[in-house]
Structures are given as C-alpha cells and as structure tokens.
C-alpha cells in the first residue's frame, strides 16, 4: 500500500513539498471545524447504505400515506366524518412525518453509538487527534440531522403529491424543520444514554418496545390525545413526538394552536435537545478522555 488516498493525493509528497500546512495549523483547524470533520466521516460511512436509506426515505412515507391516510381514512371519514375539522389524510400526514423521523433517529442513535465506543471503536481515533470528545458527539448528531433534513424533505414532497397539506407551500415546508427538531429532541438524549452503556443487553430492544413504539401509538399520531382516557394523556405530554406533531399540524394545515402552547411545544423540544447534547458531551468526554 502507498500513502495515496482515494482522491489520488500523495500525502507523503504533499508533506515533504512544504506546501502542506504545519501540524499546529491543521490541529487548529480541527479544533475549529471538528464537528464538521466528524460529521463528514459519518456521512461518508452512510454512503455504503445510500440506496437502502433513500428507498426507506421515499418508500416509507408513500406506504404510510396510502395505508393510514387513505385506507384507514376511509373508515374514519365514514365513521367520525372528520378529525379536528379536516379529513383524516390531512390530519395524520404531518404526524406520520414526525413519527417516522423519530423512529429512524432511534435506530441511528443506539447501535451506531455503541459501535463507536465498543465494536468498531470509531470514536477513539478522532479522540486521539486534536478533536474534542464533545465535537465527536456533536459531529455524529449533525451527520444524522443532515440525513433527516433529506428524509423530511422527501416526506414533505410526498405529502404535497398526495394533496395532504392544505396550507400553501411557503407555510407547509415548516414541517421539515419541525421534523428535524423533534428528531434531535429525542435523538440527543438517546445518544447521551447510549454513550453511557458499556454492554449491550436488552436496553435498546426495551427502548424500541417501551418508548419508541408507545410514542408512535399513544402520542397523538393517529388520533388526538383527547380520544384517549385522561389518565393516558401524560404519555403525550412527555413525548417529543406529541409536541412535534402539534407544531407540524399547525404548519401543514393551520391546526388551531394558542401562542402559549406554541411556545410550550417549541420550548420542550429545544430543552430536550440542549439537555441531551450537554449530557452527551459530558458522557463522551468522560469516556474518551479517561
């Protein structure tokens, strides 16, 4: 093997040519831009799964819209008539966007995080360089967020094709940032938790079964919280999915939402994201610099 990288840059020649930046300069750059450097690494890793990810991103919304929006919608529209003043497809579509993104983030922030520490030990190389553990944590999340921007955009496009939004496009596009924010509100705390685990057991399966699944089913995705008995409403209140869904409904079809509740939903999601990030940075630092 030579030192040629895939782009055909001869690292040796570059280093001895004198035109490569000095170690101090490169380290300073890594310190300044470390988050993006690490995000790039993760994104390059995702290239191996590019087509499955795209197939998933495009196929899932279509399937859910047809099955839940149109199929189940036929039952609802002939039963209750309308939900929250709109037909069922319009009601469920923005919620499905939020839910599917959250389900994807639960895949990205569990086993891959453990893999970074344990199986592939991807985190340790960068941690031995000028990169700070916090930048690695943040970089991983940024890469995942970029994936979800694409995934949410595709979902929004599918919604437009199905005529599932009634708001004009310059309002309904806001479902994209809402979806991404909800993903970080759930993904960042999950990343923090996953980074504390040293041994894989049943934890991730349990999160899938007892957190993600109930959130999908009980947090106002398929029916308003008010359709459930009052003692179950708390599941919605503590779920990022419900807060995100309410915002997405406002963006998608102008569902009624008081300014106070708007602030509450946004505040909850931002708070979860920031708290999750702080915890993740602390946990990564503890584990990579010990």
């Amino acid at each position, binding site marked *: 093997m030579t030192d040629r990288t895939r782009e055909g840059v001869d690292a040796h020649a570059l280093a001895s040519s004198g035109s490569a930046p000095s170690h101090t300069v490169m380290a300073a750059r890594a310190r300044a831009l470390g988050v993006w450097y690490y995000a790039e690494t993760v994104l390059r890793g995702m290239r191996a799964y590019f087509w499955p990810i795209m197939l998933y991103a495009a196929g899932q919304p279509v399937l859910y819209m047809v099955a839940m929006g149109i*199929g189940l919608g036929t039952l609802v529209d002939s039963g209750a008539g309308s939900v929250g003043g709109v037909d069922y497809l319009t009601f469920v579509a923005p919620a499905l966007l939020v839910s599917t993104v959250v389900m994807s983030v639960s895949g990205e922030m569990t086993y891959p995080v453990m893999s970074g520490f344990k199986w592939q030990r991807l985190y340790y190389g960068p941690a031995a360089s000028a990169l700070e553990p916090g930048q690695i944590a943040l970089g991983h999340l940024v890469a995942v967020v970029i994936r979800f921007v694409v995934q949410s955009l595709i979902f929004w496009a599918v919604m437009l094709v199905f005529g599932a939004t009634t708001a004009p496009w310059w309002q309904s596009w806001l479902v994209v940032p809402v979806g991404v924010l909800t993903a970080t509100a759930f993904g960042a705390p999950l990343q923090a938790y996953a980074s504390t685990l040293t041994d894989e057991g049943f934890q991730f399966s349990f999160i899938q079964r007892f957190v993600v699944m109930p959130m999908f089913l009980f947090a106002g995705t398929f029916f308003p919280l008010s359709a459930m008995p009052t003692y179950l409403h708390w599941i919605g209140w503590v779920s990022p999915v419900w807060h995100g869904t309410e915002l997405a409904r406002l963006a998608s079809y102008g569902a009624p939402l008081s300014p106070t509740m708007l602030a509450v939903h946004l505040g909850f999601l931002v708070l979860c994201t920031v708290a999750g990030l702080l915890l993740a940075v602390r946990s990564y630092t503890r584990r990579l610099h010990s």
Partner: protein
Amino acid sequence: MSLRALSSGNVRAVLERGFTVIKNQNWMILVSGFFEPVFYLVAMGVGMGGLVGQVEGPGGQPTTYAAYIAPALLATSAMNGAIYDSTWNVFFKLRFAKLYQAMLQTSLGPLDVALGEILMALFRGFIYALGFLGVLAVMGLVTSWWALAMVPVAVLVAFGFAALGMGITSYMTSFQQMDLINFALLPMFLFSATLYPISVYPDPIQWVVMAMPLWHAVELMRQLSVGYLTGMTLVHVGYFLVMTAAGLWLTTVRLRRLFLR
C-alpha cells in the same frame, strides 16, 4: 436422497440448546415482544375505535373496531415472532456464530437443525398467542369458543413464516440484504386488511393483497374470533399448509447445499 441422510432424529438436542439460551440470556426480550401487539390493540382499539365506530366483521355483522383488529394483530404477532426468530436470529447463527456448521459436525442432519430452529420459533408464536388470547378475554373481545382455535392456528401461521423465512435467510450474506425483510414486512402489515377492510382498494390491488400470506392469516383469525366459518376457512388453512411444506423443503435443501458438500 433418503431421510436418513438428512436427519438423525435428534431434534431434541437443538431444542434443548434453544431453551438453555432463552433461560440464560434473552427471556426478557422474548417476554417483552408480547407487549407490542397489546400496545397496538389498546392504542388502535380504544383511540381509533372512538373515531371509527362500528365496522363490518366477518359475515357482515357489525363489530367494534377493537374486536375487528384484535385477530389481525394476533396474526401479525405470530408472523413477527416467527420471522424474527427465523431470520435475524438464524442469520447471526449462520454467518457469524457459525453455529450450524458446528451442529452439522455432530450426528445432527440438516433437517434436524431446520426443524429444531423452526420449532423454537413456533414456541415463541405459541406463547405470544396464548398471552394475547388472555388479553382479549380480559378486554371482553372473545365472543366464540372457536377463538380457542386461534392458538393452534397461530402456531400454524408461525410455522409457515418460520419455515419460509429460514429458507430465504439462507440466501442472505449481508446486513443490507437482511433489510429487505423489513421492506417486505412493513407493506404486508399495512396492506393485509389488518387495520381496515380490503374493500377500500380497487380490484387489482385486492388480488395482490390476497396473494400475500398475512392476508390469509388475518382472515382466518378474524373468522375464528367470531366463529364464522366458510369454505374460505379451508383455503386459508390450506395456504399455510402448502407454505409450511414448501418452506421446510427449501430450508432443508439449502442447509444441505451450504454445509454437506
């Protein structure tokens, strides 16, 4: 090829290993799988039920939405349990743990291994079906003695999926290929008349749905749940008998080809 070349009649050894693993390691995961259909039933039955109202059950009699989807969720959980055991589990043992290679070094034949693994998947299906039927009874959703037949039928459904699933898994070599299984399962779950009647689709799509195994399982369970049996009941049962036989044949042939060359 005679049966003796494929089997030493010692399936018990494979089962014994399976139960030891459950006892020592993953009984919590196994037990927690039971909650998934129950969550679906509560959320969809109670929450959606309020929006949907009454629907048309087998034979045209009106039923509550919860009673309508319950048998479908039982069929789905039998499928999911069997598919998980016979695909991801088998894939790991086949490609990473090299467990079957080790087993076939002993007196065990490929049919022993195939049957043993499939019986483990059936055990899981049986446990889930029993638990789920209990939940249905408590929620007052059981109206016929025929519902008791849902337990053995769940095992038959699991048998069909497990046998075929293991055969198909033997062709898989990478995790990305394994993802294809999820790509096949999600639409099957969504479109097999699980959450709403098949009649919402145009005819050509209905034919596609009717070709898929889960639809037959759902219809069969739904008929049993109210004790409304017709000629179609036999067709549904026949579908799974054929699927089971075909799956067993495929799995045995594949294991022989992979290991006994």
